[in-house]
C-alpha cells in the first residue's frame, strides 16, 4: 500500500520586488509523480537547489502543491482541516539540530509533539520513554539539549517525532551539519526504526553513502525526478549521475573505472566488501 503519493506536483517560488511586482518564478518542483510504499526506506537524492527539500515539505503539508496533489496515508494535503492528522502521520526532522529543539530539557522536548496533539499526561511519559529508548538517548533525558553533540541532538529530534507515533518520518538532510560520527549515529538510529518499528523512512540527502542501504532511490534535478530504482540500479549509471553533478561512492567509482579498463566486474558495486569479493574471485579463476 502506498503511504505517500505525489501526483503531478508543481510548486513555484515567486520572487517579488518591493512594489510586489513579480520579478521571477522558480519552479522548485516540476510535475513530480512518485509513490512510496509503506515500510520502505526511501532516499531522495539531489544536489543543492534540485527541489528535494521543497518536495519533502509537501509530504507533511508544510507546503501545499500549486498543481497536482499529495496524498499522505489516504488524506489529501490540500484538506486544511485535516492538517494535524497529516502532520501526526508524517513527522519531519530538519537540517539544523539547534533550530528544532523547543524544550529546555531533553524529555520535555520529546514530549512537545504529544502535548500538541492532546495526549493524556501518563501516556506522554510512556511515549517519551519509549521514543528515547528507541534512539538510544534515554540516559540523557534530564540533560539540557545545549550540552549535547549534534548527532545526539538529531536523535532527540527523531525521538520527538517518534513520540507522535507517525507512520512515516521524513528527514530533510538530517546529517548535513554533523561530523562523520554524528552522521553514523543518526543513520543507525533511522535504520533501526525502519527495521524494528516498521516506520516508513524518507531520507533526503546529498551524501551518496547514506543511500546505499535504501530500498528505493529517487534522484531529483531541476525540480524533476530524473532517475528512480534500487541503489544498485542507480549507482551503475555512473555517467548519468556525474552529469547531474552527483558523486558516486568511492568504491563504486573505483569498480566502474576498473571495469572501463577491462576488468570483469559486475555493475553497481556498493561496498568495499563486495568489491574485494569480486576481485578475489577474479583472481581465483
Amino acid at each position, binding site marked *: 500500500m502506498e503511504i505517500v503519493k505525489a501526483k503531478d506536483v508543481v510548486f513555484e517560488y515567486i520572487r517579488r520586488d518591493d512594489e510586489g511586482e513579480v520579478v521571477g518564478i522558480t519552479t522548485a518542483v516540476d510535475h513530480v509523480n512518485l509513490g512510496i510504499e509503506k515500510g520502505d526506506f526511501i532516499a531522495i537524492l539531489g544536489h543543492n537547489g534540485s527541489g528535494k527539500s521543497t518536495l519533502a515539505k509537501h509530504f507533511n503539508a*508544510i507546503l501545499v502543491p500549486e498543481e497536482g496533489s499529495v496524498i499522505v496515508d489516504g488524506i489529501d494535503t490540500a484538506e486544511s482541516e485535516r492538517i494535524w492528522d497529516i502532520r501526526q502521520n508524517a513527522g519531519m526532522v530538519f537540517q539544523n539540530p539547534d*533550530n528544532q529543539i523547543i524544550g529546555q530539557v531533553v524529555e520535555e522536548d520529546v514530549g512537545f509533539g504529544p502535548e500538541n496533539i492532546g495526549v493524556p499526561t501518563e501516556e506522554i511519559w510512556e511515549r517519551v520513554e519509549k521514543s528515547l529508548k528507541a534512539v538510544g538517548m534515554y540516559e540523557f533525558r534530564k540533560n539540557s539539549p545545549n550540552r549535547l553533540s549534534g548527532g545526539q541532538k538529531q536523535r532527540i529530534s527523531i525521538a520527538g517525532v517518534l513520540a507522535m507515533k507517525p507512520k512515516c518520518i521524513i528527514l530533510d538532510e538530517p546529517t548535513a551539519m554533523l561530523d562523520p560520527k554524528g552522521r553514523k549515529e543518526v543513520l543507525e538510529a533511522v535504520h533501526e526504526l525502519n527495521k524494528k518499528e516498521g516506520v516508513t523512512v524518507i531520507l533526503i540527502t546529498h551524501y551518496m553513502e547514506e543511500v546505499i542501504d535504501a530500498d528505493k532511490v529517487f534522484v531529483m534535478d531541476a525540480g524533476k525526478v530524473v532517475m528512480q530504482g534500487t541503489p544498485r540500479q542507480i549507482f551503475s549509471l555512473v555517467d548519468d549521475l556525474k552529469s547531474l553533478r552527483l558523486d558516486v561512492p568511492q568504491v563504486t567509482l573505483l569498480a566502474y573505472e576498473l571495469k572501463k579498463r577491462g576488468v570483469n566486474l559486475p555493475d553497481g558495486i556498493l561496498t568495499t566488501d563486495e568489491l574485494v569479493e569480486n576481485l578475489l574471485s577474479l583472481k581465483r579463476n
Partner: protein
Amino acid sequence: MLRDITLGQYYQTESVIHRLDPRVKLLGTILFFISLFCFKNPVGYAIAIIFLAVVIFLSKVPFLFMVRGMKAIIFLMVFTSLVNLFATKGDAVLSFWKITITRQGIIMAITIAVRISLLIIGSSIMTLTTTPNHLTDGMEKGLRFLKVIKVPVHEIAMMMSIALRFIPILLEETDKIMKAQLARGADLESGNVFKRVKAMVPILVPLFISAFRRANDLATAMEARCYHGGDGRTKMKPLKYQKRDAVAYVILAVYLLVSIFLGRLWIFDIM
C-alpha cells in the same frame, strides 16, 4: 556587570520555598509588592522585612548571594533617594545655600531606599528558587484568567520559554561572530563610547539575521510537530497544588492582613 545581576538566576538547592508551586511564588511576589506600596508607617516595613528574612532563611539561599545581585541597582537606589531627599517640601532640618533638607525628605529617602531593596530582594527570591521552566508554567496556568480580557497568556509563556532556551545558543553565536569579525581586523575595544557602540554594528547585524533565520526554522519545526497554540494542548508536567501550597497561601494572607492593617494604622504615623 551583567554577570553580577542575580535577578533572574536560579540557585540550585533543596528547600521548602524551592518546592512550592510556582503559582504561589508568583502571586506571593505580586502581593508582597502591593503590600509595600500600602504602608504609611515604619511598622509595616518592619513586618515586611521580618517576613522576607524568614522566607530567605527558609529558602536556604545565602543572603550574600542575593545582595551581590543588588550591586547593579545601587546607583538607581541612591539616585532616587537623593532626589527625594532634596525635593520633598516640609519642615526644614538643615539648610545651606539653595538647598534645604526637610524632615519629611529624610523619611521619604529612607522609605524609598527600603522599598526598592525590598522589591529587588523580593523578586530575586522568586527567580532564585524557581527554575525558568517552572516559572513560565506557573505564569501560564496562574495567569490564565487574563485570557478573558484577550491576553494571550499561553503564547507569552511559550515565547518566554523559547527565549530562555535560545539565550545560550545566541550567546555562543555572538561569540563566534565576534571572533570572525576580530579575525578580519574589527576593532571592538579601543576608542570612546560612541566608537565602541559603532563597532558593535558589524556584530549585531549578522546576529539579528541569524536570529530571524532561526526563528523561521523553529516556527516551521513547531508547526511540523502539530503546534497550534494552547487550545487542546495537554501537559507533560502539569502543575498540581500540594498541601504545603495551601499552607503558604494562608501564611501569605495572614502576612497581608497584619502588615497592611498595622502599616496603615494612624497611631504609628511619623509624618
